[in-house]
């Protein structure tokens, strides 16, 4: 598969047929299922739960399209193995709205046209929800001045939003609208 193969004696033995039972609390409902040890949370959400909002843009944790909230924090679900998440609470983009009423971040994305092709959008929205909480909890970012760090909630100006949202790529270039949408939510 790869030109940089190690040679037969050094190749690790592939884990090919190991399964375990886990319970995942996805969008409020506990589900117990058997997962292949190689299967990521992203693949499990998409293929086992039919929750295809989270997208596979790179499968390497480089693009953020698979971002979901695990125990309230934003994560790249392509980098988590499902077998290691037994008992976890997972919120996907499908679980953000309250019935017909959109989450404020979802509403702001619609109103600001903060999306084009829409493929990165579920990840952007989950990331924004997680990011707002991180800032409220006082987590600093690269854009946070040393004088404001660790003194309570971080006020989010445009530079802070841009920095904190930079793990979510958007090739359509909707970034200016995404920043506006998040600013609307903060206000």
């Amino acid at each position, binding site marked *: 598969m790869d030109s940089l193969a190690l040679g037969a004696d050094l190749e690790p033995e592939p884990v090919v047929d190991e399964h375990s039972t886990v319970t995942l609390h996805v969008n409020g409902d506990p589900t117990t299922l058997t997962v292949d040890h190689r299967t990521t949370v992203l693949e499990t959400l998409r*293929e086992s739960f039919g929750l295809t909002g989270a997208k596979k843009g*790179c499968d390497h944790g480089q693009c953020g399209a698979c971002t979901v909230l695990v125990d309230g924090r934003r994560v790249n679900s392509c980098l988590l193995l499902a077998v290691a998440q037994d008992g976890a609470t997972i919120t*996907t983009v499908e679980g953000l709205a309250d019935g017909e009423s959109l989450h404020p971040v979802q509403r702001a994305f*619609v109103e600001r*046209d903060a*999306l084009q092709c829409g493929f990165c959008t579920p990840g952007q929205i989950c990331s924004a929800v997680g990011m707002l909480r991180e800032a409220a909890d006082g987590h600093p970012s690269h854009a946070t001045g040393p004088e404001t760090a660790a003194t309570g909630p971080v006020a989010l100006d445009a530079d802070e939003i841009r920095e904190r949202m*930079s793990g979510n790529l958007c090739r*359509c270039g909707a*970034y200016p*609208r995404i920043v506006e949408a998040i600013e609307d939510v903060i206000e």
Partner: protein
Amino acid sequence: MTTRAPQFPGAPVVRREARDKVTGTARYAADLAPAGCLYAWTVPATVAAGRVTAVRAVDALAVPGVHSVLTHDNAPELQEPDDPILAVLQDDRVPHHGWPIALVIAESLEAARTGAGELHVEYERDPYDVTLTDDHPGLYTPEEANGGHPAVRVRGDVERALAGASVQVDATYRTVALHNHPMEPHAATAVWADGHLTVHDSSQGSSRVRESLARAFGLDPDRITVVSEHVGGGFGSKGTTRPQAVLAAMAARHTGRPVKMVFPRPQLAEVVGHRAPTIQRVRLGADLDGVLTAVSHEIVTQTSTVKEFVEQAAVPARVMYASPHSRTVHRVTALDVPSPSWMRAPGEASGMYALESAMDELASALGLDPVELRLRNEPETEPDSGRPFSSRGLAACLRDGAARFGWHDRDPRPAARQEGRWLMGTGVASATYPVLVSRSTASAHAARDGALRIAVNATDIGTGARTVLAQIAAEALGVDPEAVRVDIGSTDLPVAPLAGGSSGTASWGWAVHKAATALAARLAEHRPLPADGITTTADTEEETGEESPYARHAFGAHFAETAVDAVTGEVRVRRLLGVYAAGRILNARTARSQFTGGMVMGIGMALTEDCGIDPDFGDFTARDLASYHVPVCADTADIQAHWIEEDDRHLNPMGSKGIGEIGIVGTAAAIGNAVRHATGARLRELPLTPDTLLPYLL
């Protein structure tokens, strides 16, 4: 041809699928899971040239869950496809690194991937050449460049005019290979059932994909349905049929089960096209007032051994500035590299980087303001063809942009402004993109209860096609856009061209307008409606077949303010402002998004997107999103798009020009010119990374 006065107000209607996209319910090609679906994983060639001598699949087939392995030995035989890049698994030849040589099909993605790792492939290696140089022995002059443009155009005597010019610029610019990298990797889900093939494909135009599949599999097109309901961006890379559609269909035929196939991100650069690298020599001759006497633009670029694709980078020089003497030339060499193809504004994006950088160099040499230099070279007619412009808003864009940007306070001296460690500069560049339009069909239906439906196989790759087509139909029918249902994205709908060349709205919209206008006339005659309602169909073959006597182009101007870190060489774009003259803007909300999106991609071209080809490895060096740096949110500060209303009666019934690509054209030049203004350093190679700037800052 003169059409009636456009009436479109350009209302900022919210895009129709926005709610589906923010709630995660919009379905893309890989989001489907038909019952019994298998998963396919491609195995790319690991040599740059040669042939496959053996594929040993015993270990792969022994992996639990692996269903089968397809190689050139056992894959379904195809007819000669309409694009040679689709002839996958047909023979043992390896034309470039990454060419698909096997497909592992399994009950789960994990099993398919594990199986691919257990496949043992042997090759016979041939010598290969992946390095483009401006004196490459394989260089030749093709008949045509992309878009059907003649490779060579000559007016007057450029050499003599250059020799006699008071001021000359002679500069060579280089651009690297760039990759489209839409966020959605190319994906297809294929089902054969009862002799009918259905493929959900990530494509910019499913009518074209159906044609390709019909030809490759020797099928009547009526036995194929291709659906592209939602598409996660394409930027040209999904404009032509790509191998995932063929591979998924092959696998589904071979196994008798549905198959889902998604190219892994690190394989995309090798199989979905790229913007070819260019070496561009630009020579300008002018008198002391800055009036051009000679323009010469010579392109050297590469294609693959699989097909000829020539980036038409000298074509914008045939459109932009008046000059009695002109020479525009493309030369290309076929290397053992993946096949280049369309990437957002092919030709214009790379060519205008060089031309607009050279114009800035000329302005510096003359001591003339770069906006003023461009205004002094406005042509009366299109320089190359002599045809009158249907409308030409470049001067208006430059003037309006200069006023909005605050250009007139500019101190022209380079390397004269510093804010702390930041060296500050501003730059300008023009933009242009041709008006293209293709034949389309569409239908309009009024049900007995009054419900209105438009059907056209348009594709929404993120432009807001459904929304703008509803607006166009609503205008013709005299109703609100909300009253019109729009069905797009399937070959079961009336045939339509792809979303590409910034021509989708013009092409589909024209057919929709025609069908809806006919429906409005029929509705006026029929009350009450018959039980099965009224349907009208439209075909714009005649309208779009006429060659316009006018030169038709959108124009624009880009203004950039950059800050260069004097210590690290990092470039930050503080402000980017574009003004466009693109006919009638049909939806202000979605249009703004397309313009600014193009500008963001221009920032990537200018500063971050960099992909070389390793001469030993024989392939692209930056093949994933950790190594190939597309712009992130933190790279985009103050980005604004504005436009000038144009009332151009020589376009289409909507009065619109394309807007999807012009945002990237000239953006890199504006940024490069601003960096030169900030630092005094004139770099002629993109991207402007810190390592390339640092030597000039020490």
